[in-house]
């Protein structure tokens, strides 16, 4: 899907254009449902998260500003936050770490290898420069929406150790990615 289209549709949603909202949903509903389903692991919760996300998107569309991130990235972040908040509220068990194939895989994570490349230092390169368990923890926090509790339990380290690991990993990543 073309980013310009999504940005234009968002601008029109901000002006109260319901037809634009229908087109936006048509173009992005599958992605946002995929995000919610991955994080929540069941269809009825995923539907609830997507519904809340689009209500927020409609009301917040006029405030979206194209900047560093893409319009689609903004939509995904709303669905992701909504799904994670619902996951925490449900205290549903996250899937087992064995589902994370990249932990035992010596190559780049499947997500990382699927990413495009350009001259900029990408998050995949920078994750690849971290110790593998640190990179896996950051990836699981983002993609699966795992909390510190989930991460500590799954990586079998004390909660405070996990916090320290992850914060240091984030600082290293920021230095690698640049400002």
């Amino acid at each position, binding site marked *: 899907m073309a980013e310009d289209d999504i940005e*234009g549709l968002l*601008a*029109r949603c*901000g*002006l*109260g*254009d*319901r*037809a634009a*909202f*229908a087109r936006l*949903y048509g173009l992005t*509903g*599958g*992605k946002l*449902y*995929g*995000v919610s*389903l*991955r994080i929540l692991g069941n269809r009825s919760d995923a*539907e609830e998260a*997507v*519904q809340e996300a*689009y209500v927020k998107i409609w009301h917040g569309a*006029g*405030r979206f500003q194209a*900047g*560093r*991130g*893409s319009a*689609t*990235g903004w939509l*995904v972040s709303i669905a*992701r936050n909504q799904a*994670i*908040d619902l996951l925490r509220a449900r205290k549903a068990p996250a899937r087992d770490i064995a589902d994370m194939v990249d932990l035992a895989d010596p190559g780049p994570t*499947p*997500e990382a290898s*699927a*990413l495009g490349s350009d001259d900029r230092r*990408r*998050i*995949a390169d920078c994750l690849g420069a971290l*110790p593998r368990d*640190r990179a896996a923890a950051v*990836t699981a926090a*983002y*993609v699966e929406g795992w909390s*510190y509790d989930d991460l500590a339990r799954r990586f079998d380290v004390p909660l405070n150790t996990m916090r320290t*690991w*992850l914060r*240091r*990993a984030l*600082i*290293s*990543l*920021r*230095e690698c*990615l640049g*400002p």
Partner: protein
Amino acid sequence: MIDDQDPPRDPDAALAGEYVLRLLGPEETAACAAREARDPRFAALVAAWRADLEELNGAYAEDPPPAALERRITERLFGDRPSALARLWQSAWLWRAVAAAAVVAALWLGPLAPTPVAPPGLPQARLVSALASVDSDVALVAVLEPEAAVLNVSRTSGAAAAGRSLELWIVQGAAQPVSLGVLPEGRLARVPLTREQAAAFGPDTTLAVSDEPAGGSPTGVATGPVVAAGPVSEL
């Protein structure tokens, strides 16, 4: 391999990352959101994390949502209460505003002007848009005067904040929003449209008002929040 045993050099870089990852508790998340709004340096860190982590979104597969979901969302957004327009039809100020707009039109044409006859091809019915929003008290009514290609706009409540301007926009069909200019401080305004805008003025038209710096958007696109919007209906 990056040495992760160094002492943290920028704790804010980690905090902004934790905030974007949604690892913080509700209170910390709210505190970060507030800080993002008032601290440009922190906001830049947050924006950098959002943009960088966005690259991981490729991990999320698209999955078609159930067909009923879209209907539930649109019902929740637009269907579970009368539309702003429907509520406005029943309010006294709408009719006062329409009357005021008609008076402006009459004054403009002059007391002796003959009753104008719409040229062929232009819509005869009176086309009206009521602009409002739940988030602000700014509300307007706009009535098209098709023969003159003029929109008579009556601001019925709300006003621009000190040092700010209210800018009127028109969205027609699939086109990008076009500015119709900054609304004057007075309650009534005559806003000229192009012949094309007047001819296309109808159910596929949306009018909106955004809050902009004094004098209007410096970029030609709306930069501030939309404070009122509404579709066009036939009266």
